C-alpha cells in the first residue's frame, strides 16, 4: 500500500533437511554460550533432537532421549552447555553437551499429557526456576532447579473454567525480583500469575479459541498471543499488573503454532498452520512479509540475536531466513 511495487518475498537463505520427521521445536544456541560455533537445536516428532551447525549447515549430533515420542520444547541454560528438552513421553530431560558429551544428566517427570510447553527463568545463578504443566488438568507447577523441589502449584479457582494451560512464559520485571508467569489457557484467555503469592493478578479473554503461544516483551510491557483461531492479540501490562487488550490482528487463515519476538524487539514472526510464516513489525503490528515456502503446517519459529529466522515445519524441513538483518 505504501510502496507502489513492493519487492517480492525473499527465498530462504538455506534449508536444513534430514530430520526425517516433522519438526516441532527449534532453539538457537549462539554467542558466548556457543563458543564460536552457533548451533540450532531442532526437536522432531520421532523423538530425536538434531544439533545443527550453522556454519557447516549439517547435523552435528543427534540426541535420542524421548523414546520415540515427539519433542515439543527445547531450551538451553545460560550457564554451561546444558539443554532442556521436553517430550510427549512426559519427561523433561537435561542434557550436558559440554566437551562433546551428549548425555542426559537429569530428568523431570511431567504429569500433564497436554501440549503445553514449559518455561524457565534463569539468570546467571546456579538456581533457576522452571514452570511446567502440572498434575491437574488446569494446574501449572513451578519447580526450583536443579534441586527439582516444587515451589508451588498455580491452580485457578474452581469456577474459573480456564481449561488446560497451553503456553507458559516465566519472566521477571527488571526492577523487582518477583517472578511472574504469563499463561495462555484453553478457553482463550491469558492470565498473569504472581508466582510468589500464587495469585492470579489479571486475566483477559482475548481469544475465542485455545491460546497456542504467547510472547512477552518485558521492556515495553507488551505481549502478543496467537490462537487456533484467526486472530493475533496484542495486550499490555500496566503498572497495577493488569492486562489490557491493545488490539487484535486478523489473519487470512486460522491457526498459529508459535509466536516469537526477535531479541531486538523490532519484528516478530508467527508459525502458521497455513504453511506460512508471517512477519510483523512489533511496534506497529504492520504486516511485513508472508513467507510461503513450506508445504505443510509450520510448527515453530525461532530468532537468533543477529536476526536470523528459523522455521520448522511438518514437511520435515527447517528453513532459515535473513529478513531485515540488524545493522
Amino acid at each position, binding site marked *: 500500500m505504501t*510502496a507502489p511495487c513492493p519487492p517480492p518475498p525473499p527465498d530462504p537463505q538455506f534449508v536444513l533437511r534430514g530430520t526425517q520427521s516433522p519438526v516441532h521445536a527449534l532453539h538457537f544456541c549462539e554467542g558466548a554460550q556457543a563458543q564460536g560455533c552457533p548451533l540450532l537445536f531442532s526437536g522432531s516428532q520421532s523423538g530425536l533432537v538434531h544439533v545443527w551447525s550453522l556454519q557447516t549447515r549439517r547435523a552435528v549430533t543427534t540426541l535420542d532421549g524421548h523414546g520415540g515420542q515427539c519433542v515439543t520444547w527445547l531450551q538451553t541454560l545460560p550457564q554451561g552447555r546444558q539443554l532442556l528438552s521436553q517430550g510427549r513421553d512426559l519427561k523433561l530431560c537435561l542434557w550436558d553437551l559440554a566437551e562433546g558429551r551428549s548425555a542426559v544428566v537429569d530428568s523431570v517427570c511431567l504429569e500433564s499429557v497436554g501440549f503445553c510447553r514449559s518455561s524457565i527463568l534463569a539468570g546467571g545463578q546456579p538456581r533457576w526456576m522452571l514452570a511446567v504443566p502440572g498434575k491437574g488438568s488446569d494446574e501449572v507447577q513451578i519447580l526450583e532447579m536443579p534441586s527439582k523441589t516444587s515451589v508451588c502449584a498455580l491452580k485457578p479457582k474452581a469456577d474459573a473454567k480456564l481449561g488446560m494451560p497451553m503456553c507458559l512464559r516465566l519472566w521477571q520485571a527488571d526492577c523487582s525480583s518477583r517472578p511472574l508467569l504469563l499463561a495462555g489457557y484453553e478457553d482463550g484467555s491469558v492470565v498473569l500469575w504472581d508466582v510468589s503469592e500464587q495469585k492470579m493478578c489479571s486475566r483477559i479473554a482475548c481469544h475465542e479459541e485455545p491460546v497456542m503461544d504467547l510472547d512477552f516483551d518485558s521492556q515495553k510491557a507488551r505481549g502478543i498471543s496467537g490462537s487456533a483461531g484467526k486472530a493475533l492479540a496484542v495486550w499490555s501490562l500496566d503498572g497495577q499488573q493488569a492486562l489490557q487488550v491493545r488490539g487484535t490482528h486478523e489473519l487470512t*487463515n486460522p491457526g498459529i503454532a508459535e509466536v516469537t519476538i526477535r531479541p531486538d524487539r523490532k519484528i516478530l514472526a508467527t508459525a502458521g498452520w497455513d504453511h506460512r510464516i508471517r512477519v510483523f513489525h512489533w511496534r*506497529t503490528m*504492520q*504486516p511485513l512479509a*508472508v513467507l510461503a515456502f513450506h508445504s505443510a503446517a509450520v510448527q515453530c519459529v525461532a530468532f537468533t540475536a543477529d536476526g536470523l529466522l528459523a522455521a520448522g515445519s511438518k514437511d520435515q524441513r527447517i528453513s532459515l531466513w535473513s529478513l531485515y538483518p540488524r545493522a
Partner: protein
Amino acid sequence: MSCQQAEPGLAGAAARRPPGGAVGQLLPGGPGGPSLPGVDGDHRGCCGPQLPADEDGAAAGQIPARGPAGSADGGAVSAADAARLHPAPGDAAGQGGGPARSPGQPPAAGELGRVLPPELLPPARRRGRPGAAGSCGLSPRWPGFLRVLRVSGPRESLCPREAAPEVLSRLLGNLVVKNKKAQFVMTRKLLFLQSRLTTPMLQSLLGHLAMDSQRRPLLLQVLKELLETWGSSSAIRHTPLPQQRHVSKAVLICLAHLGEPELRDSRDELLASMMAGVKCRLDSSLPPVRRLGMIVAEVVSARIHPEGPPLKFQYEEDELSLELLALASPQPAGDGASEAGTSLVPATAEPPAETPAEIVDGGVPQAQLAGSDSDLDSDDEFVPYDMSGDRELKSSKAPAYVRDCVEALTTSEDIERWEAALRALEGLVYRSPTATREVSVELAKVLLHLEEKTCVVGFAGLRQRALVAVTVTDPAPVADYLTSQFYALNYSLRQRMDILDVLTLAAQELSRPGCLGRTPQPGSPSPNTPCLPEAAVCQPGSAVASDWRVVVEERIRSKTRRLSKGGPRQGPAGSPSRFSSVAGHFFFPLLQRFDRPLVTFDLLGEDQLVLGRLAHTLGALMCLAVNTTVAVAMGKALLEFVWALRFHVDAYVRQGLLSAISSVLLSVPAARLLEDLTDELLEARSWLADVAEKDPDEDCRTLALRALLLLQRLKNRLLPPASP
C-alpha cells in the same frame, strides 16, 4: 497533431513552406478575421474569376500569372495528373511536388508580396533573401493540394498551436464547393485512393471541410461514403490493412467534427453501413481487422445513438487504439485540431499527478499511527514485502493417483477436490507414465469435455497442459483419439481449436531434444547417429543395445592415450526424436476430412477460423517432423492440401497455407523434394509468385516471398549456378 516530417522529395516544397505557415502564424485571428480583410479578400477574389476558365479547360499554365495560392491550384486538376496520383505506393506527393513548378510562379509570389503589407511578410522575405523570393508555396498544378495539406500542418519552427485547417482554409477558400474537380480530389481521391496521408494531413483536410457552413454538407457526404466503404465486405476482404486503417481514421475524424443534429438526419443510413462493417470485421480472422471494427463501432454508435446504452467491446489497448480513440474525441466545429491537442494533455497528465497524492494519502495515517505509539526508535524502516500471495488456504484434497484424478474430475461434486485434481493432474501424469498409459484415452476424453464448473484461475491453461502431458505420455492412442474427435459431430469450435493446440504443443514436446531425459533410461553417452532414431525408440531391446555400447566405449577409452589435457569434450547429447514414430498419427487424420462438411462443422464454409488454425497446425507439425522418414509423405499430402485451398478468401487461412509450404521446404530433404514432389512444387511456385505480387494482405505477401526465397535457395543448392 505532430509536426510534419520532411520528405526527401519535398526539398523544394520545404523551402517554399514559410509563406503558408507564416501567413497562418501572422494571422492568429482565424479566417475572415477583422485584422486582415485584405488577405481574405485577395483569396476569394482570385478564386471567383478563376473558375469559369477552369471549366472551359483553359491551359493551366496560363492561369497562375493572375493570382497566387489556391486559385492557381484550382485550375490544375487534369486527368493526367489524376492518373499520376493513383496510389502506386511511394510516389505520393514527392514526385508531384518537384516537377510541378511552373515558370509562372515567381510573379505570383511577387503579387502576394504586393498584396501583403511588408510587416506581414515572413522575415526571410523582408530581408530580401533571394531564395525566398519564389516561395509563394503553391504550384499551379494539382499536387498543390497535397503540398497545401503539408504546408498547412503545424511545424516546430512555427507556432505549434497553429490550427492547420485554418491555414488550409485561408489558402483554398471555398474552392471545394465551387470547383467540381477540386471537390473530387479532396473528397474522393485523397480519402479513398490514398492511404499515405498522415493523420495530421487527414485532420487538416477534414477540418478544412468542417470549418465553413457551406462545406459541412460535404463533410457529411464524405462520412457517409467513408462508412459505406468501411462497411463493405468486399472492401474489407480486398483492401490492405493500412488502407483500412486510413479509412477508419477518416471516419473517426469526420465524426469528431460533425455535431449531433447533423448526424441525426442520416442516422439510419450510417447505422446500416456501420452494422454491416462491424459484422464483416468481427468475422475476420485477423485480430487487427477485428479490433478496427470494434473501435470504430464503439465510437460511431456512441455518436449516432448518444442516448442509448453504450456499445462496449473488450480489446487490448495499444498505440493504435489509443490514437484512434483520441481522434474520435469530439471537437467544436471551428476549433480545429489544436483544441484536440490541448484536450489530450490533461488526460495523459492526470494519472501521474494523482498517484503521488494517493501515496501521500496512504502514507500519512501509517506515519501517524507509528508516531502515536510514543516510541523513540522510529528510525527503523522496514519495507514490507509483497503479500499478494497471502490467500486462503484450500484444504488439500489433491488426489495422489491418476485414476483418482479421473474419478474426481468426472464424478466429484466437491468443487475443491475437482479443482485440486485438475491442478495436480499434469504433475501426476509426468510422474507416473505407466499408470497414465492405462487410462490415457479415457483421461483425454475427460479433459477434452471438461467444463469450467467454477471460476478456477488459469483453467484453460491447466486443462491444456494436462492434455499435452497425456498426449506426450501416450502419443499414438491419444493422438488418434484427438484427431478423430476433431472431425466428430458434437464439439464446439473452441474444443476443436483446443485439439489443434494440444497436438501442436505435444508434438513440440515430443520432438524436443532431451525430452527422453524425463523417462528413466539407461545412459547412452554416445551421440546417436540420426539415421537410427526409430530403431532406438521402438525396439524394446534398445536398452541392451546401449549397454554394449557403454562397454565398448569404456574399453576404447581405457586403451586410448589422450595427449591433450582436459576431459573428453561432450557435445550436447543427441537423442532420437520421439515424435518421429508417431508423427503420422498426429498429421494424416487431420487431413482426411476437411472437405466433408458436417451439420455442425463446415471447415470450408463459415468455420474458416478453424481452417486457418488447421493450416497453421499442419505447418507446425510438418516443421516438427523434420528428419523423420514420414516427412516426405507428409509434405506431399500437405502440398495437396495447400493446392486445394490456395484461393481461399480468408487471409488467415492463406497465411497458414503459405507457412505450411515453407515448412515443407524446410522439413523434407532437398533431394526427395526434387524427386517426389516436383510437380507439386512447381505448381506451388507459380502460386507463390502470384501471391507475393498480388495478395492484398501484407503478411501473405511476406510469407510468400519467404517461401520463394527458400525455393530459390533449394534450387541453388541442387543445381549450382555454375552448371550452364
